């Protein structure tokens, strides 16, 4: 009697699972489709640039949060210095363009690779002992980078460098960056998805739960940690190289703030670190909240307070983030479950 029932239910389960996958594909596909088409509206609508700007930032933050999630969420090692990768990307592409005339769209992937290389060596040193030492190292790294860049005359020191507008008419100038950031966001989320559904990702999760047991179970914890950290730098570096040109200037005080690093953490934690869709949800929400706070409260000091309060509230009451909490209660919409 029971055998029969389970047969039936397994069958319908696969059907349902199949449905879920197709449903998800349609959902994601249509959203991407819309996003790709949006810039077209610049030909017939006003004020499109504002939306392009917001969406562009959202894409960038999605990429940043998803990347951070790889080391902070999957592996459980909190990095507070991820902005270093932004700076590496930004300065590499900036200098390549200013001094050698190479377009950032070419150097962007290289910026990503350089970030990975840096992440690899940095991880080699700082991932040897505990998570506590790692957090400390990440803070020290950011501060050290800031001091070094502030005194790096070749890179412009504290004043940084001015990067010219790319040779595109003003009305359309946001469009290339829009697509670049969209591509970066998709890339980062896709990488996050692939890692999560791999043996590597499984190992990372084991490390985040109990590193000693993971090591005992034969997982090469040190290699995995370093790889996760290095990978987490790629899209951040690429985003950094684009960002500098979008802002048209590079400055240590913009790229290397602790606050920006805090925002990366907040987005992931808010959305649900350790999940694939969490950072995406968190980034989107964060952009909205940030816009609200900036228009309502204005000054950056209150922004800092708000970031802290929001982070504390999420940590104390919803440590699994939005996606994680909803999932635990079985209320997560299927289209958002990418784990």
């Amino acid at each position, binding site marked *: 009697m029971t055998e029969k029932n389970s047969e039936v239910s397994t069958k319908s389960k696969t059907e349902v699972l199949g449905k879920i996958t197709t449903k998800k594909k349609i959902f994601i596909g249509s959203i991407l489709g819309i996003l790709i088409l949006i810039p077209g509206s610049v030909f017939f609508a006003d004020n499109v640039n504002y939306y392009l700007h917001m969406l562009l930032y959202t894409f960038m933050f999605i990429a940043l949060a998803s990347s951070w999630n790889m080391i902070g969420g999957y592996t459980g090692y909190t990095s507070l210095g991820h902005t270093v990768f932004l700076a590496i990307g930004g300065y590499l592409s900036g200098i390549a363009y200013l001094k050698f005339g190479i377009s950032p769209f070419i150097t962007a992937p290289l910026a990503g690779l350089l970030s990975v290389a840096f992440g690899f060596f940095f991880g080699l040193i700082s991932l040897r002992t505990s*998570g506590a030492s790692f957090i400390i190292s990440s803070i020290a790294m950011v501060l050290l980078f800031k001091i070094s860049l502030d005194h790096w005359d070749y890179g412009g020191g504290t004043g940084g460098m001015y990067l010219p507008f790319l040779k595109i008419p003003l009305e359309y100038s946001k469009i290339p960056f829009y697509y670049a950031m969209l591509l970066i966001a998709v890339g980062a989320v896709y990488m996050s998805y692939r890692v999560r559904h791999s043996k590597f990702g499984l190992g990372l999760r084991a490390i985040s739960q109990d590193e000693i047991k993971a090591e005992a179970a034969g997982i090469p914890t040190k290699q995995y940690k370093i790889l996760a950290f290095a990978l987490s730098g790629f899209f951040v570096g690429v985003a950094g190289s684009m960002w500098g040109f979008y802002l048209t200037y590079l400055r240590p005080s913009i790229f290397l703030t602790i606050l920006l690093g805090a925002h990366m953490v907040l987005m992931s934690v808010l959305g649900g670190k350790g999940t694939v869709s969490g950072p995406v949800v968190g980034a989107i929400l964060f952009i909205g909240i940030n816009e609200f706070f900036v228009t309502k409260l204005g000054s950056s000091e209150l922004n800092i307070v708000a970031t802290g309060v929001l982070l504390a509230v999420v940590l*104390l009451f919803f440590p699994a983030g939005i996606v994680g909490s909803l999932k635990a209660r079985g209320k997560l919409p299927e289209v958002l479950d990418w784990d």
Partner: protein
Amino acid sequence: MTDSTIIFQLLVIGVTIGGVYALMASGLTIIFGVMKIVNLAHAALMMIASFITYFAFTNYGLDPILSVIITIPVMYLVGVIVYKVFFGSLEKDARFGELTVLLTFSIALIIEGTLGYFFTNTLRTVSVPYSTSSFWIGDVFLPKGQLYATLLSIALIISLWAFLRYSKLGNAIRATMQNSTAAQVVGVNIEKASVVAFGIGIAMGGAAGSLTTYMFPFYPSKHWEWIGILLSLIVLGGMGSLAGSFVGAILLSVTATFVSHFFGPTWSVATFFLALFIILLFRPQGLFGKKMEVK
């Protein structure tokens, strides 16, 4: 000035600053030892004490060194309140450590933002006669202000050590630091030990915050620089070791003073961070630490 005089001079300056760093680090060390978390908000909390001292001085003329009498108990209370509000409800589960560190991060942000909002980021400092005058020993000068600060710091550190060694509560805290299960088993209320330890740690930081008002210019966002320095100190000394943080503080402070003299003041801060990475490379457990279990 002969070379050896310069070296001796730099040593003197380094040691007299190092004492204050050691005081700051001692609070961090206690908190780490008992709760096994890195308190990223330590320097931000110190900043509160700095502001208290600053306003007590500018409005009432209270000497910054004397203000320590106020800031120690006040910051102890602040520490207890912060603990109860933020950490009191946390369960001691597996994710305790990492979650709590992020929580201290958020506390730091809240403090920085609040202080920045009310007091803006202008550089402030307290000018007292002894902040610029010195004793002279032969060719070498001993900055008065720093000397006083270091002497007071050492006195406070010794008091802390004595408290931990000889008082019942101090022993309870030490026991919790060394083996929290065993401490529970002999009847120590480790929750209470944690609260008190946190309070004491912040109180130590508060004293340091008061002392630094006349030694360095301060502003709300400077706490990241401080915490970077302090964290490097305790990693060097071996996390959880009071002796280690003291030695680490003096060593790094002296080194930074030399770097400042030969390479310029802006690089002296970088010294701490570089030292951190060097230590992690060659002796990750620090000078006095045990091999830390991973996470």
